[in-house]
């Protein structure tokens, strides 16, 4: 039985999908959360000077996506064979494309430009990606409400986490996407996840 230690800041962001995976699987781990002023002292302990990092029996893995995929595979939340895992990966990559598209307005310093870019993102980019998620869910989901083969995978958990953040900007963004609404509802209903959501720190992003 390996021992797991997850290092990150005290936010959801790039580590929350891994915390959700541990919760869904009912698996134990040490959930190390650094405050901003603590981090500099630990930076050199991490392979690339970045977090999140997962430590598995002393081996450190960087890169949030890699960490989540590794944990999902350990706990059978990644798809049951290579092809299913690839479908899950395809959904995951599409979610990250959406995040990258959001980075442009999010990091814009000029206030007027930021407002323009954010509006464009919310009215064009976001619906386009949401439509892509529905396409993938309907093609891969095997008639169910989870993205791949009618089973919970980390693609559902990742989607759940990041859409929560988008809903802070636009609460009604899933209004035209009933399949996606149902997908999130299914995730929230899972008993271990419901328990985790109830007890986790209330963090904005």
């Amino acid at each position, binding site marked *: 039985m390996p021992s797991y230690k997850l290092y990150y800041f005290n936010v959801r962001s790039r580590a929350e999908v891994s915390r959700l995976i541990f919760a869904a699987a009912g698996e134990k781990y040490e959930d190390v959360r650094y405050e901003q002023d603590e981090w500099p002292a630990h930076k050199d302990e991490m392979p690339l000077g970045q977090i999140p990092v997962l430590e598995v029996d002393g081996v450190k893995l960087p890169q949030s996506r890699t960490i989540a995929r590794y944990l999902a595979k350990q706990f059978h939340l990644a798809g049951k064979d*290579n*092809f299913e895992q690839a479908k899950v990966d395809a959904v995951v990559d599409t979610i990250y494309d959406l995040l990258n598209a959001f980075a442009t307005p999010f990091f814009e310093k000029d206030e007027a430009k930021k407002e323009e870019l954010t509006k464009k993102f919310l009215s064009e980019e976001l619906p386009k990606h949401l439509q892509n998620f529905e*396409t993938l869910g309907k*093609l891969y989901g095997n008639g169910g409400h989870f993205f791949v083969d009618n089973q919970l995978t980390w693609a559902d958990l990742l989607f759940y986490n990041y859409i929560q953040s988008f809903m802070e900007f636009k609460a009604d963004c899933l209004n035209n996407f009933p399949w996606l609404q149902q997908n999130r509802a299914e995730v929230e209903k899972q008993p271990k996840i419901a328990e985790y959501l109830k007890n986790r720190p209330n963090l904005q992003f």
Partner: protein
Amino acid sequence: MSSGDLKFYYFDLQARGELTRLILAAAGRSYEDIRFGFDKWPEYKPKMILGQAPVLELADGTQLPQSLTIARYVAREAGLAGSDNLESAKIDAVVDTQKDVNETYFSKVFPEKDETKKAEELKKFLDETVTKHVENLGKLKKAYSKDEKYFVGDKLSWADLFVFQSIQALLQAVPEVKGKFGEQFKPLMDAINGNENIKKYLDARPQTAF
């Protein structure tokens, strides 16, 4: 195994398609390498699962989008993705790290139209991003490799092919990057260039702008 059971759709470019072609070459796997120019894209786009390329299509017509997902899938099929979950994860970590740098180049340097600004961004990319990246790759290799050539364990993986392809592509676009990589990747580059299957593919592949 007939080539009809696997179709790879991409532009007649290296860019986001070449890694998968290299993996399939290393594996000696036959497939239909469907390449098209930008002028033909409007014909293909509606047939692609998310209206994007590359796409991998299996014999039963199911399509996979997303270049790195496709690469990981064919790598796993070919035994080039690690022998257990932790090795696969170490490989993914190297891939993600290389990907971050490629994305920096493609978002900050490549699209810049203003010549002066482009030169500035390129200098920053070479002096800061690439310098740090070469250090990072070295650290990962030290932590994960059991070999002087390969990044993870002691055999070729798709992480090696991704770094190989990325360095080659960058050298073609920005020859001045050559000195930044030093000697530390020479054993890897030599091993890949010398791999029989890969050499055959590299000798025969079309020359493209990027």
